[in-house]
């Protein structure tokens, strides 16, 4: 049913509809409205869940690791310093193949401390074995959470999923959102049946010590599963469409790419602003298009190449930079062209760090620079 909600409250409603049973929460701006509304639902008896007020993010991840290992559906949310503090637990959760769902309300990282939006936090966790989806708007954030639970608990995947939504820009934005009915969610999302879990009836030991003779294969298995997920996701997305009556993209979205010679590639809420600029440029005859990356992990390399192969000039815009090299998404997109002939010009742009506003002018500055020589790391709206 179409409602007008703040992004955080919409996501909290989805978590309620998915019937998470153990929720761990440690407050960090701008994630707080999500856990606050879940707390109120539990306090009012609208959500039958254990809501655990932990003493830190390291424990927030540890609590959902323990609960998921004991066979219940879990949820937690964090951002920035909190995500960095819990990273060792994130690796452990993926290694244990536990289907934990985490919302990252993306925010810059210290020092200096900054509470506004960028993607430096979640990209730091991209090697941890979690599926990572980035939402453009709050409708997508809701749909990606529904897909996250279904994919994570699918016995062909059994991996945790991180849904990234831009702090303040999405979490604190009031938008029109179509929330599903409980019956639809129950149809799409079967009860969670763990592959292995802590249970006296079958007292297995989890997370055991594995030496050189057996450790490698566990990593290979996660990597192979990530690659398999690329094929599993489209099928589940179709099921999503049948149940909820609308499409959901989980890997990429093509926008006016058919005859585009210049293509922007980006993730998250800035995509909306880029689409506005593209419509303007198209009106005065410029062949410009956009490829929205939704899944940063697993990175859909083949379909990214298929989508971009006819472009002459590609600009990758991102809100993060691997200090000492280039933007992580830029590296990923360039790698899609390895082994293919007639390489297009691909330039990398860093913008919107620490909440600096991305305006239409910023996008046009990207386009001007793209026309020139290829650059690896161009900071846009730099004040030096």
């Amino acid at each position, binding site marked *: 049913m179409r409602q007008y909600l703040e992004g955080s409250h919409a996501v909290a409603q989805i978590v309620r509809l998915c019937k998470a049973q153990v929720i761990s929460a440690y407050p960090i701006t701008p994630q707080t409205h999500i856990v606050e509304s879940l707390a109120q639902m539990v306090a009012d008896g609208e959500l039958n869940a254990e809501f655990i007020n932990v003493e830190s993010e390291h424990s927030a991840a540890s609590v959902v690791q323990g609960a998921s290992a004991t066979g219940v559906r879990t949820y937690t949310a964090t951002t920035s310093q909190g995500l960095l503090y819990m990273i060792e637990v994130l690796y452990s959760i993926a290694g244990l193949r536990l289907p934990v769902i985490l919302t990252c309300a993306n925010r810059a990282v210290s*020092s200096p401390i900054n509470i506004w939006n960028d993607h430096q936090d979640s990209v730091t966790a991209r090697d941890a074995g979690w599926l990572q989806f980035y939402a453009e708007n709050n409708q997508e954030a809701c749909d990606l959470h529904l897909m996250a639970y279904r994919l994570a608990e699918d016995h062909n995947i059994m991996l945790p999923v991180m849904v990234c939504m831009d702090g303040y820009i999405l979490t604190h934005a009031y938008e029109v959102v179509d929330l599903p009915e409980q019956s639809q969610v129950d149809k799409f999302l079967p009860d969670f049946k763990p592959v292995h879990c802590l249970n006296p009836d079958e007292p297995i030991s989890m997370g055991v010590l594995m030496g050189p003779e057996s450790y490698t294969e566990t990593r290979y298995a996660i990597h192979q599963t990530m690659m398999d997920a690329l094929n599993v996701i489209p099928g589940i997305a179709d099921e999503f469409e049948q149940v909820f009556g609308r499409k959901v993209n989980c890997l990429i979205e093509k926008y006016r790419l058919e005859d585009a010679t210049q293509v922007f590639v980006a993730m998250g809420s800035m995509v909306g602003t880029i689409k506005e600029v593209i419509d303007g440029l198209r009106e005065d005859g410029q062949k410009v298009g956009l490829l929205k990356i939704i899944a940063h992990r697993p990175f859909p390399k083949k379909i990214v190449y298929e989508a971009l192969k006819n472009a002459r000039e590609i600009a990758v815009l991102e809100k993060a930079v691997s200090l000492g090299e280039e933007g992580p998404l830029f590296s990923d997109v360039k790698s899609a062209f390895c082994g293919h002939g007639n390489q297009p010009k691909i330039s990398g742009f860093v913008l919107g760090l620490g909440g600096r506003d991305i305006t239409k002018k910023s996008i046009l500055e990207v386009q001007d620079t793209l026309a020139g020589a290829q650059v690896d790391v161009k900071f846009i709206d730099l004040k030096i």
Partner: protein
Amino acid sequence: MVTELFSSGHTACVGCGQALGARLVVETTGPNVIIANATGCLEVFTSRYPESAWGVPWIHSLFQNAAAVASGVEAALRIKGKLDQVRVISQGGDGATADIGMASLSGMFDRGHDILYVCYDNEAYMNTGVQRSGLTPFDSRTTTSPAGKKSFGNPRPKKNIPEIANAHNVPYVATASVAFPKDLQKKVKKALSIRGPKYLQIFVPCPLGWRHDPGLTYEIAKLVVETGLYPILEYQDGKLISLKTIEAAKPVDEYLKLQGRYAHLFTERGKGEIAKIQAIADSNIKKYSLLKESKEVQKKMMEEKPSEEKIFTTAELSKCDGKDGRPAYFAYKGKVYDITGSDRWADGTHYNMHFAGSDLTEALVEAPHGDEVFERFKIIGVLKM
């Protein structure tokens, strides 16, 4: 003089108790101190680039490691041989201290660093918007321990950090409130006179989080002590050496009704809960014997008072209140002074704050003058313990 160690212009909310507490602390430590400050309101409202309210060297750690960063600062000063000129302070809010920073705080205590740790207790995570912490009081409403059809707010009582600090054999542990600024500053000075780890926990009201009138910060910080809900104690090497006694314990309702975070208790459903909070106050009063005339308190603090002069019982002293022609006496540290006829004690009252016929030992701490002003009065006896 406008203060130079914690300057105006910081962006704390109107009537912020934590800004008041932080200013009182750093004005006492003086310039030769390095502060390691955890993430939180204090850090945010004093250090928005390119400005800073601090007049002393100050570093923002992260949320959970202020005590560990301070340990590093202390170690560096120690190896440079400067630890007796430059002292080290580590500070944070209640969440940074009692929750996320507990491990590094325990580590600092355990290693015995020469650091004063100050916890500004505003009883919830205020910087992120009033979420529950380990020091959120019982039944108080926060956004992650909300009141609802099935809940009266925070279901758990406050952690007792002073006793946890004592369990680490910390040489000096004390609590204070911004309503008693002189007592607070006296404890900071005392702490800095001691080597090794020290812990000071300061009660600081938060108008935004507790939803009270910004002008009531002082009043609320006083009432919490006068109801017994926040014992003001001082330990040295684990032994109680001083505490702030209460004349007659005020009912907790007087304190609770000023704050929106307890509004949900003033309903039909909530009445029973207020009784539970009163029980917490009563148990504090009993456990720490906070009431004035309870005998143990008098004996414990005043043992060494032998004297052959006239001995006054408390009852006898209270009759000499200088009214209707009666003499005006008061007691100070066990001695009884005659102030009959003094122009500053007209009909037995002093600036309508203090009254003849009572024991003014504790009240003097908050006075703008020391006990030198008593020299010109005659000592005419001793207060019987």
